[in-house]
């Protein structure tokens, strides 16, 4: 098995619902947002490896490490 990294981008306006080191399951919300249409969920299960702010796009870049 090898480790795979999945990048998820969410708006930086709202606090990410996950922190580095936390386990997430596929389908878990990555953020609490006012508009359900904007809800971003984890596409894979794994461990949150990093949460970085991207100023250019005003988004958080969340990296999920998972086994593939």
């Amino acid at each position: 098995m090898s480790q795979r990294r999945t990048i998820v981008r969410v708006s930086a306006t709202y606090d990410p619902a996950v922190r580095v080191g936390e386990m997430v399951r596929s389908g878990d919300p990555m953020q609490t947002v006012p508009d359900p249409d904007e809800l971003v969920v984890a596409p894979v299960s794994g461990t949150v490896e990093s949460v970085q702010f991207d100023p250019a796009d005003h988004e958080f870049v969340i990296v999920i490490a998972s086994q593939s």
Partner: protein
Amino acid sequence: MKATVRALLIAIVSLTSVVALVGSNLAVGGTVFNYQTAKTDSNDPSFYQPSITSEPYPLTSATKVKNVIFLIGDGMGLNQVALAGSAVAGPSGKLHIERLPVSGLVRTHSSNSRVTDSAAAGTALACGVKTNNGVIGMTPDGKAYISILEAAQARGMATGLVATSTISHATPASFGSHAKSRKLEPAICEQLIAGRINVLFGGGRKYFLPQSDPNSGRKDDVDLLARAQAAGYTYVQTPAELRSVDASHVLGLFQYDALKTREPEPPLATLAQKAIRLLRKASRESSDNRQGFFLMIEGSQIDWECHANRPAGAIRQTLLFDQAVEAAVDFALKDGNTLVIVTADHETGGLTLIGGGNEDKGDTELTVKWTTKGHSAAPVGIWALGPGASRFSGVQDNTEVPKKIAQLLGIRPFPRLVK
């Protein structure tokens, strides 16, 4: 509803960063440095000279508003101002922002959220209407509203935008364009040029280059630099070119992306001073030299440092912004008919300042805590100086700010739809 809000608040209270502030000594992540001596520290704010007095700037008896300088600190909540002031001037000192003689509060919610983003907040501050987060210069149903900058231009005033982000980022974009999404920066740049705004200073050169250029941020062949120059803009990209330029329309793009806010770039205060000089001349050379100018200046990166929950960076960016405020105030006090307004679009980071002891006993320690990595719903401050400044006291919605400016400039009706 209340229970939901309370639950959300509990959920987001993660104390991610603790900073002890003791006099001029700031400990960040265990590293102590002194602002007076730490020249090599990347966050050294020794560039900043605090006011020798905390006395407020004078009120004016003038009533005629000729020029408006509108300064917006992105993400600059009241505690960001307090933190930066404490860092350089101690608990009793004041930033230039805090010396403006009139102050008030601004509520910031957007159409679809208690927590706004810079697009919706910028639209409120520019156009006087609420919209959804992410939308630039139009209501949620897609109706474009004229911005106070565009209305001032239509009245014959010279206009300018200065930012430390890309010039097409959400806040400056809200004053000079209309777009369904803040992410449409290439199209927003086209609107800024087509809008004939006299002065455009910031970053974002990549959006002005065709896709054939390796540094381009566009997905088409539009050469917006060439288009701007053909339309009469003088283009500058270095401090030397900035110093020497003297034209009615100037496009200054000092980075491909956002500004670095480091040398050799011109600092925000220098950009502000140059913009004021150019706009004053442009307005004097207009057909009616009584028309004046409207200038929006944004300290874009306070927000970015607060998203990263970096206190020292937030302090530095707030001080860079405060220097631009000082430049605006210097001009306004000499001119006598210039209204200066300083506010923020929203607060970022949920910054709190706790602890602290008896100042008389030398106990000035503060603890800095962040409650979110996103924005908060906290109201922000507003400060004003010059004719009409008193209109901005008290508690107001962010949509009221440009309406008051419009009233003072005799612009009616406002808000109004783009024709």
